[in-house]
């Protein structure tokens, strides 16, 4: 047992073991079941829960620290399907108890039609079983890359990022990543990643500059954003489909109108009063009188709606105004949902104001969660089988367990440490990162072969000529050369392509660096203790 003691008391091996233990703690694998909360919608039953509102998780929170729903009304919830089965049995105005791993919440379902009551406003996904964040191509979701259409300062870009985040939050999405990326030529992009969401509407919300203006004639009376608009109503009492507004248009489509009220600042109300006081009053057929000019609503310089102004508002600094619009569809149901969707977008833009720069969508990816799920299993299989085939090849080549078993242990250690590193920095593992892991491990095997051959694969005479230290130095001369060439080849990739290949570059560099400084020295040490004659 002397050798084992020697192995486990060696400094390099202890370092490797510490790295491994830390990595496993960081990855934090667990087998527990349940559904994690992805987001909580504003103004939903969940956001009005007692004792306090259920909230969307902080996107920077580690996956294992997400709030997990364990049971609803005492019935355990293990899968997303079970969650929805239970939600579908809810009735209106019902009080329910949701038990999470943090605390118990009491919710009251909404009144109204049944589907609305059942939607308590919580978006869930299967509980993560470890802290490795999955990339969009593995988890499913939407990624949009936006490019400013004009020269934009760093401040403007940062403001835009903050604004987009706010927009998405107001829209009801919180688990999002918005960041500025750039490329080799210094072009800036804004990358938006929304896991688990496959919504077309989100794209529009992102690309719209959202310059909202209300005009009377050519005069702008108020703009979007919190300077002119103090409050935008988004609850059912003062926003929704206008009763009786749905109908068939002359081209055979269905159309439904929406309306919601907003409160203007005193300043904006005064502005409106000063513009309307000079307008003429025009009587209309139904005994009502309107002003000669209409209030027109413009979004990004395009007129989206036109409202008549009641005669009683002439010169009157009113602060409460109703905004309206419409949506169309092939049937009433679609028209209703299209209308509600545009309402939500318009509300969002009115709350958040316009973006400082005009953006263009240059790339979008929407990946279905089903595809991602299959990819993960497949990628794990690819990884395991690649490692297995390498183990078989080195076992056949060396015919010596003292060389091939440490080699296999080293390979597996490298995988664990790379994944631990990814969990530590919160890096999202995507398909290219998995390819990079396979390749980093491949280069690791190459190095171990070099170490084995340089230290053991010589004739008896050569062994006598050099000390173990010298042989190791010779081996690491080659290992370092191959390390440096691989790293310098990856550096330009880090900066190219709007950050989309950064994951590949980062994972490869991290993988080979860990390999060269932690696992391969440990491998050499194990080899030395097991095989080398230390006289």
């Amino acid at each position, binding site marked *: 047992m002397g050798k084992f003691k020697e192995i486990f008391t060696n400094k390099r091996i202890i370092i490797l073991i510490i790295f491994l233990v830390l990595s496993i703690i960081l990855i934090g694998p667990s087998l527990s079941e349940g559904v994690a909360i992805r987001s909580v919608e504003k103004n939903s039953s969940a956001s009005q829960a007692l004792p306090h509102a259920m909230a969307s998780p902080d996107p920077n929170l580690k996956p294992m620290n997400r709030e997990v729903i364990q049971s609803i009304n005492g019935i355990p919830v293990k899968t997303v399907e079970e969650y929805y089965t239970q939600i579908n049995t809810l009735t209106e105005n019902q009080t329910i108890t949701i038990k999470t791993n943090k605390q118990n919440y009491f919710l009251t379902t909404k009144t109204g039609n049944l589907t609305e009551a059942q939607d308590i406003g919580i978006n869930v996904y299967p509980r993560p079983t470890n802290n490795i964040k999955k990339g969009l191509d593995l988890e499913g979701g939407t990624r949009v890359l936006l490019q400013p259409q004009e020269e934009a300062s760093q401040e403007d870009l940062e403001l835009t990022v903050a604004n987009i985040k706010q927009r998405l939050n107001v829209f009801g999405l919180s688990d999002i990543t918005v960041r500025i990326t750039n490329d080799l030529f210094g072009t800036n992009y804004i990358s938006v990643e929304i896991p688990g969401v496959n919504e077309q509407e989100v794209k529009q919300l992102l690309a719209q500059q959202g310059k909202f203006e209300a005009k009377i004639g050519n005069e702008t009376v108020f703009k979007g954003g919190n300077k002119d608009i103090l409050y935008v109503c988004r609850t059912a009492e003062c926003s929704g489909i206008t009763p009786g507004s749905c109908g068939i248009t002359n081209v055979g489509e269905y159309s439904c109108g929406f309306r919601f009220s907003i409160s203007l600042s005193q300043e904006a109300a005064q502005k409106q009063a000063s513009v309307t006081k000079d307008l003429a009053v025009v009587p209309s057929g139904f005994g009502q009188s309107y002003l000669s000019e209409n209030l027109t609503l413009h979004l990004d310089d395009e007129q989206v709606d036109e409202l008549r102004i009641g005669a009683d508002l002439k010169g009157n600094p009113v602060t409460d105004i109703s905004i309206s619009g419409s949506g169309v569809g092939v049937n009433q149901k679609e028209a209703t949902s299209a209308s509600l969707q545009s309402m939500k977008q318009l509300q969002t833009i009115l709350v958040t104001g316009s973006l400082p720069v005009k953006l263009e969508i240059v790339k979008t990816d929407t990946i279905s969660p089903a595809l991602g799920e299959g990819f993960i299993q497949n990628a794990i299989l690819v990884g395991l089988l690649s490692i297995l085939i390498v183990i078989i*090849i080195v076992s056949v080549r060396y015919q010596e367990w003292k060389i091939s078993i440490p080699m296999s242990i080293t390979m597996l250690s490298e995988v664990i440490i790379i994944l631990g590193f990814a969990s530590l920095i919160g890096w999202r593992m995507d398909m290219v990162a998995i390819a990079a892991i396979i390749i980093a491990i491949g280069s690791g095997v190459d190095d171990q072969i070099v170490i084995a051959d340089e230290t053991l694969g010589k004739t008896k005479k050569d062994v006598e000529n050099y000390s173990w230290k010298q042989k190791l130095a010779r081996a690491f001369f080659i290992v370092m050369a191959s390390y440096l060439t691989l790293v*310098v080849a990856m550096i330009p990739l880090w900066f190219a*392509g709007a950050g989309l290949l950064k994951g590949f570059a980062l994972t490869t560099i991290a993988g080979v660096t860990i390999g060269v400084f932690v696992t391969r020295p440990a491998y050499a040490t194990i080899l030395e203790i097991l095989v080398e004659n230390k006289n």
Partner: protein
Amino acid sequence: MKRNERRRRHEQKVQEVQVEHSEPRQTHSSESRSIYYRDYKKLLIIPMLMLIIALVLIGVKLATTGEFINKGISLKGGTSITALGDNLDSKLIETQLKSEYSSIEINVRTLENSGQNVGIFIESDILPEDNLTSNAFIESVQKITGIPRDNLSIETIGQTLGDAFFKQTLVAILIAFIFMGGVVYLYFRTIVPSAAVILAAFSNIVVTIAVLNIFEIKVGTAGIAALLMLIGYSVDTDIVLSTRVLKRKEGTVYQRVLGAMKTGFTMNITTLGAVIIALFIAESAVLQEIMLIILIGLLVDMVNTWIQNAGIIRWYMEKKGDM
């Protein structure tokens, strides 16, 4: 006492292991019979021809199409759609889509897992800037495959971004190449052997691109990442070779080359094994693209390392008077 005995027994065993792993000490007669030993200068023609043919092929392609590589949509803009389902017929779907969109390049291929059909991957030139066609196309795919939009994975990339990506990846390859050359030169500090390594890496990329063109394989950003990887990866064996020949003193130059080859082949075979397995079972188009390029590149590299680089370095050592 016991311990000493065990150690001695172990020493014997170690020596056996080492003998087993020793370089093949061939006799002079068998060495001189080997073409690899005798005609290494003539053998240099093979990699040289390979490089020249590749350059000519790429030149012809550049002259006729204006492109030297078959760009995937991520490098030129377009739309790609992945649909999962085991009963989707890629040929049939391609014909149906082509009849609807005759003026657009559409390419449908089957996604396979261990020989089983798991879905299809559709690539088209439709640019997202053309919003109407783009949406109509996605709807057509939905109709033909019968898969709802939420279950389709859709990737669109604008033309300007595609072009920008392409230009950048060329710059990235160039920079990576210069960096790699710099590291190699700093390492060996001699012109000829460093140049031989750099030539091998250059030849790897050029020949790999030519092979990709012959098989009409499209290269996207992931493929470019793989080409960059190849720069760093394929020089590993060249470094083993150069180090053994230049920095070691034991045995003849030829014996050192053979020793390096034994190590290098083990490295190549393990990598090839892993890459072939990954290529065969990977479902993801990205993973397949990366693995395919590395596979081709490594095969090309075996010729470039063990015939070209080994030939040049032996020639160089011969000139220096070291046999």
